[in-house]
């Protein structure tokens, strides 16, 4: 009671958020789990309880496995490349010269842009016949071909989104571009927290800029790196909008991601129980990866 008396005003201020959080975050999470234990075709009047049958079916479903592997492939491409790029940009923008604000805004703008806008823009860039990328590739290819026909073939066009081999890497490329600015800001904040005197001391001791980064900045940046990696792994496992808009999972399931598969099960096949089970299996997988990352990267106090 004493605690209550002391904190009642705090509780009052927290109440609106708590109510919304319980209503719109926690209860759907619980409800989703309950649904995953049912077979529920949405037009059927009542869901029927099936226990863990949906989970068993998900683990046996080869399309789910394909979707999971394609998603993992996406994560492997996007997380290291995206974080390396973000860190590089952050280090670059952490120097003292004019115009850094302009670049910060420029790199951050894509993050603010909605996925549908980004996807439609890149669809045009990637178009096989009329795309900007292939337009320049054709020009370069033709120029090189006329210079040295023996070495270069003239055809440099890439079937970006229409080949099973290049579709997922193309999606990854645009995702790296799209997301780099977000982590950049976080890395930048991390870099600002590195004490200047440590860097100066290292400089006096005769460290090269690279040694300074490796021996001072990088270890101190570890909590930031952990945060960025964890968040981008979680985010990347949930990739949806890009493939939904650009490829619809094709060609031949090569860009079918787990969330897209869940969406298709839920909203074009209306198998709500099954879709929820897919969601929960992904949740479990991401949880495992997150714990692993914490174990491997966390700083010992």
């Amino acid at each position, binding site marked *: 009671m004493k605690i209550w008396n002391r904190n009642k005003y705090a509780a009052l201020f927290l109440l609106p958020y708590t*109510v919304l959080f319980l209503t719109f975050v926690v209860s759907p999470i619980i409800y989703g789990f309950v649904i995953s234990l049912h077979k529920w075709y949405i037009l059927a009047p009542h869901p029927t309880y099936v226990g863990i049958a949906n989970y068993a079916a998900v683990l046996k479903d080869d399309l789910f496995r394909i979707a999971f592997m394609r998603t993992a492939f996406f994560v492997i491409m996007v997380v290291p490349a995206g974080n390396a790029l973000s860190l590089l940009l952050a280090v670059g923008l952490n120097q003292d010269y004019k115009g850094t604000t302009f670049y910060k805004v420029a790199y951050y703008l894509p993050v603010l842009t909605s996925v549908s806008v980004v996807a439609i823009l890149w669809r045009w860039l990637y178009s096989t016949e*009329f795309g900007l990328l292939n337009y320049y590739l054709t020009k370069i290819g033709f120029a090189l071909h006329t210079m040295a026909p023996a070495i270069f073939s003239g055809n440099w066009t890439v079937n970006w989104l229409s080949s099973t081999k290049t579709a997922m890497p193309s999606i990854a490329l645009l995702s790296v571009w799209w997301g780099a600015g977000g982590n950049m800001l976080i890395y930048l904040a991390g870099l600002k927290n590195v004490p200047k005197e440590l860097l100066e001391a290292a400089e006096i001791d005769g460290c090269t800029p690279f040694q300074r980064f490796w021996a001072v900045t990088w270890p101190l940046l570890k909590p930031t790196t952990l945060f960025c990696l964890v968040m981008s792994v979680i985010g990347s496992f949930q990739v949806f909008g890009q493939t939904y808009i650009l490829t619809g999972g094709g060609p*031949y399931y090569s860009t079918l991601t787990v969330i897209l598969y869940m969406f298709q099960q839920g909203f074009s096949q209306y198998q709500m129980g099954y879709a929820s089970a897919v969601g929960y299996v992904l949740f479990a997988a991401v949880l495992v990866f997150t714990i692993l990352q914490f174990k491997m990267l966390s700083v010992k106090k």
Partner: protein
Amino acid sequence: MLAALLLALTAILVSGCGKPRPVDTVNGVTTIEFWNGFTGPDGKTMEKIVRQFNAEHKDIRVRMQIIPWNTYYDKVTLSLAFGGAPDVFILHASRLPEYADAEAILRLDDKVAALGNKVNDWTPRAWAAAHWKGRQYAIPLDCHPIGMYYNTDLFKKAGIVDANGNAKPPTTLAEFLADGKKLTKDTDGDGRIDQWGYIYTWLRTNAHTFLAQYDASWLSKDTRHAAIDSPEASQAFGLMTDLINKYKICPKPEGQDAWNGFRIGKVAMVLEGIYMLSSLEEQKGLNFAGAPCPVFGKRAAVWGDSHMMVMPKKLSAARQKAAWEFMNYLSDHSLEWSKGGQVPVRKSILATPEFRELPVQYQFSKELPYVVYLPQSTATNQVMPFCEAAVEAILNDLMPEKEAVAEANRRIDNVLKRQ
């Protein structure tokens, strides 16, 4: 106190969710909601017909809501499951079994029986597609088959003309191959073919047409098993790949670029839906015409679907009456509707001189006697992606045909098992 507050909040939330019970008739006027997905020029046509209906009926007011097709079925399904459903709405014939089987839409047998002889005015295949397990659930508004669009300029340039010098579309496989050969060219001499005789646009409709012409289908006749590994289907897939690899009159599937290829005059022939007509009419400098799909296989057959007019199961008598009146009105006025790129399914309308003056619609209407709908099953919408993926894999040489159809068959059977 906290608990009380929470309780109050929940009460507000819950009470806020319930819609006020709609009143059927106000001052002698029954207002009904009509949902469809006609976002293109067809929506404008429909709006015009609805306005006309409202002007002619003092006791009924129709309020139309257009929802893009890609989210349309989600909205319809959720509204049927959780409330807020419209009073009349459109379903594609291929989706009808899902809603009929779940008893989410109203049986119309009694109402149809009261129509008397008028029922014989509908074309038989569209009429049959309005049924599920022997019961009638819908009134067909139209039929939209695919047919052949051809570029008349390219035909004339290649010398494929009749006695009057008009472009002459192929009607048989032999003619199709011969014309295709003449129309496939490297026009700028850089060693790369840049004008194609034919191109696959939507794999679903194109492959369905080839299959149907060889008496094959995606599912067995009783729709309980996958059947795309049948010998007949193999013949159809064989011809489809031959057009690319053996006869070389068609490139590999190019997705969205394919249709643009025809629009900008780089492709001479496509098999596309009558609903694409307005997209061609908008294209400046394109001279085209329509013709029935050639016979490639054993018999004439072509993919088609219909917009079906249905009512939800839970509907008051007054609203049912108004909705029924409106559905009949739309059908009676489907000549107007067909002008936006549809084929009517009323024999009396098909016979009018006014309809016969619509060049492409009239040509495509010749396909009505042999139009083949997708298999009638509650799982059709779920299994078609597997079918299309198999066709995509076969035509792109991603894997041997045997493997592709076996994989698709297995996935389809999995879905059918849980129906």
